[in-house]
């Protein structure tokens, strides 16, 4: 063991800059927010159980080198349509969740296949294309849900349909399935409730991802992610594999949305899906993932840090400035500012690593 010299301390700081940054912000923010420990811990647990699945759904396309899947919103739409049907048929509890998931699968596959095709055609412009695709599909979704449902697609439940006779109302009460999974296995430590069953499902998807990496398909995706050209020359069908990656991500996003909404308890029919894309991606980035590298640990770390910041910053901002009207702006400023800084730090770290390798070489040569 060498004694830790200045260099290694700097190295440590550099390579952990983002978590340290968050640590500082949170340690300043928490006292200012005035929240109790119970509340904060409970809130983080809830948010982990609510969002992890969605964030995890982003990992597969990253593995295949397709970057962050802004098209996950499509999966969320599929999940929502599943939930609308389940609520309409008045299917209660776990069966409801299960059925909604099953209903979402064919839709997700269809949507995923479509967005995979489009992204293949727009290589290198995936991000912008993903944005616009989400807008486009939002229109289609509105067409189906607001005009198709109740007129073409029969919806029998009058409390869901607008009184004009067609179209789903802007909110669907998911009381039938609300937190059925979360409270399936009740566990309370002190005042803190832990949704054991949800975490088990999340663990399951983690296992799936770990297992998936070990399959032939997973291996192929990793290969494509590293170098499309080499993979192709080894005989892997690149385009097809990329589409499969997006489909898997979309299906998982659909499931994730259902888990998210069973916790939230109400479906914001025309907007819920808009919530997930941007925030899941931001959380994953904050966790240390990048456009071409994402690990399960990034997802969890990201959700924890990102949401902890979101929980404490409005109150902290308000108390820090002393005006409620500024608290919200302060929160948005700090949150997005921190995300920008985090991204810059990650980029900077990568640059430094490259530089370090370079200087090591030069030093070795100087010595000779």
């Amino acid at each position: 063991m060498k004694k830790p010299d200045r260099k290694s301390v700097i190295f440590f700081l550099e390579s952990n800059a983002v978590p340290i940054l968050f640590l500082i912000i949170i340690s300043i923010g928490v006292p200012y927010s005035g929240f109790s420990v119970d509340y904060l811990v409970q809130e983080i647990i809830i948010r982990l159980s609510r969002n992890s699945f969605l964030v995890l759904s982003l990992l597969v396309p990253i593995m295949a080198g397709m970057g962050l899947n802004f098209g996950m919103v499509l999966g969320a739409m599929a999940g929502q349509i599943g939930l609308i049907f389940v609520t309409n048929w008045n299917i209660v509890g776990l069966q409801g969740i299960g059925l909604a998931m099953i209903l979402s699968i064919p839709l997700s596959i269809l949507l995923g296949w479509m967005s995979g095709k489009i992204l293949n055609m727009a290589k290198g412009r995936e991000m912008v294309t993903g944005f616009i695709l989400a807008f486009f599909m939002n229109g289609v979704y509105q067409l189906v849900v607001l005009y198709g449902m109740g007129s073409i697609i029969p919806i029998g439940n009058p409390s869901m349909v607008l009184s004009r006779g067609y179209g789903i109302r802007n909110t669907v009460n998911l009381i039938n399935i609300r937190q059925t999974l979360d409270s399936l296995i009740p566990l309370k430590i002190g005042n803190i409730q832990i949704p054991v069953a949800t975490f088990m499902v999340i663990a399951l998807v983690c296992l799936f991802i770990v297992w998936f990496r070990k399959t032939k398909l997973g291996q192929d995706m990793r290969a494509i992610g590293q170098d499309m050209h080499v993979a192709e020359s080894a005989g892997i069908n690149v385009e097809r594999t990329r589409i499969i990656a997006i489909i898997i991500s979309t299906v998982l996003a659909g499931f994730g949305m259902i888990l998210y909404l069973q916790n939230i308890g109400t479906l914001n029919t025309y907007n819920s899906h808009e919530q997930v894309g941007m925030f899941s991606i931001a959380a994953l980035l904050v966790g240390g993932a990048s456009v071409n590298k994402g690990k399960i640990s990034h997802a969890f770390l990201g959700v924890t840090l990102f949401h902890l910041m979101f929980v404490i910053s409005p109150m902290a901002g308000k108390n820090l400035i002393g005006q409620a009207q500024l608290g919200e702006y302060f929160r948005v400023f700090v949150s997005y500012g921190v995300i920008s800084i985090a991204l810059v730090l990650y980029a900077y770290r990568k640059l430094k690593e490259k530089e370090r390798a370079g200087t090591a070489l030069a030093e070795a040569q100087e010595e000779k």
Partner: protein
Amino acid sequence: MSQNAPLLEMRNVTKDFFGNVVLKDVSFSIERGEILGLVGENGAGKTTLMKILFGMTVIQDTGGYGGEILLEGKPVSYKSPLEALDDGIGMVHQEFSLLPGFTATENILLNRESTNYNFMTELFGDRMRTLDRAEMKTRAEKAIEKVGVKLDENTPVSEMPVGHKQFTEIARELEKENVKLLVLDEPTAVLTESEAEILLKSMRKLSEEGIAIIFISHRLQEIIEITDKTLVLRDGRIIQETPTDQTDIEEIAQAMVGREIHAEGDRAEVRTFNAPHLIVNNLWVDMPGETVRNISLEINKGEIFGIGGLAGQGKLGIPNGIMGLYPAGGEVRIDGKTIPLNNPREALDASMAFVSEDRRDVGLLLDEPIDWNISFTGMQMQKRFLKPVLGGLFRLRDDKAIEDIANHYIEALEIKCMSPRQKAKELSGGNQQKVCLAKAFVVEPDILFVSEPTRGIDVGAKKIVLDTLKEYNREKGTTIIIISSELEELRSISDRIAIVDEGRISGILPASEPSKAFGLLMLGKVDSKGDSK
């Protein structure tokens, strides 16, 4: 019948690229377990020959080839490299085709992984089979063993020394069950001597097992050492086909270079110089794959100075380092004035110019027209090709002047193009090279570095490029430093030639010395082991 037929036979293979003949009536055969040495200068047609064998799409795209290829007596014509692989022909490329983040095992078994059954395959097909890591490990180990090296199969490729990458590539080819013929394209170029030794040993072992090998190398020593038969290609023709034990390095080199006889006429008249212009002391350059360790040079005013050496030895690092494109250290002086390193601007301001060996990435703006490419450096460095507007308030690009200068060089260098506004990426390699030269000529430098000016261009263009350089040197008195892998090219134009080996100068000789002398310098005859560690 297939028992008696040679493993591979090529009959009268001919290939031209748009009328430019690169292969003519090439016929040879190779038996099982035979090692065939394929030698020839760059551009002699070796690579094209191998591309034809593997059915690379570029061959079909450019009109196919003439003649026929027989594998075990059966005519074959591959549409894609994958088909060739299926028939047991493997190739190790000069550029690595490896995934940096994958371990050796994963790379060796890429897309041929061992897998286990699980119930998901019933639902989603075979791609859901899980990888059998244990089995993969044994298979990889076996393949590595075949190569005969010690290699940790769990190391990611990105962390491997370059030699191990090479072994990984070879192991990948050997791992294929039915491999009968292996093509190794300059596998030893990046290896240290001891590593090369190991490779040669394993090649011998493979041939004993009945695997035929086509071995392409510039290291003639190795060819002599290991091959059963030597095939010399020059200008697309087979010049010499002899059992290796009946020839020697000198004869091969002679056959390879060939033009020596008439090249003699081209030889630069012996000139003497005594005004040192560019002085380089203890230069090191961190250029990946072309590391320069410690080089000192003294170059005279008005001289054409050649720098030669094998690929990967560091000759390319010298101009790149001096011009500030890669991290460098040491001292560079022009007429006694020290030039700061690591800043391209300083180098350019000192009236140096550089024609990079990397045309696509460094030399050209591929998406921009020819005239832009030619005038850009001149405009940025010397504020030329600008015309004052509004009484000199500010200055705009002078499109007329730009076009004029472009037209001038298009004519002077015989650049084949439709117009000066044609995009650089639409030009052929040779014409792109001429554009790069024109770009350097435009700034009228005192010192011009030209790196691999003839790489990948045809014989006709080669001549124009070299003649132009010579002419330019004679007319303007420009000091030219030309870096090339092709010795004869250097000899035909340079006054003196330095040979770089392992990042150091192994010797500087007048160009009039026989090529053999240079060849010996190149082949590492200078004992460098003493100071390398």
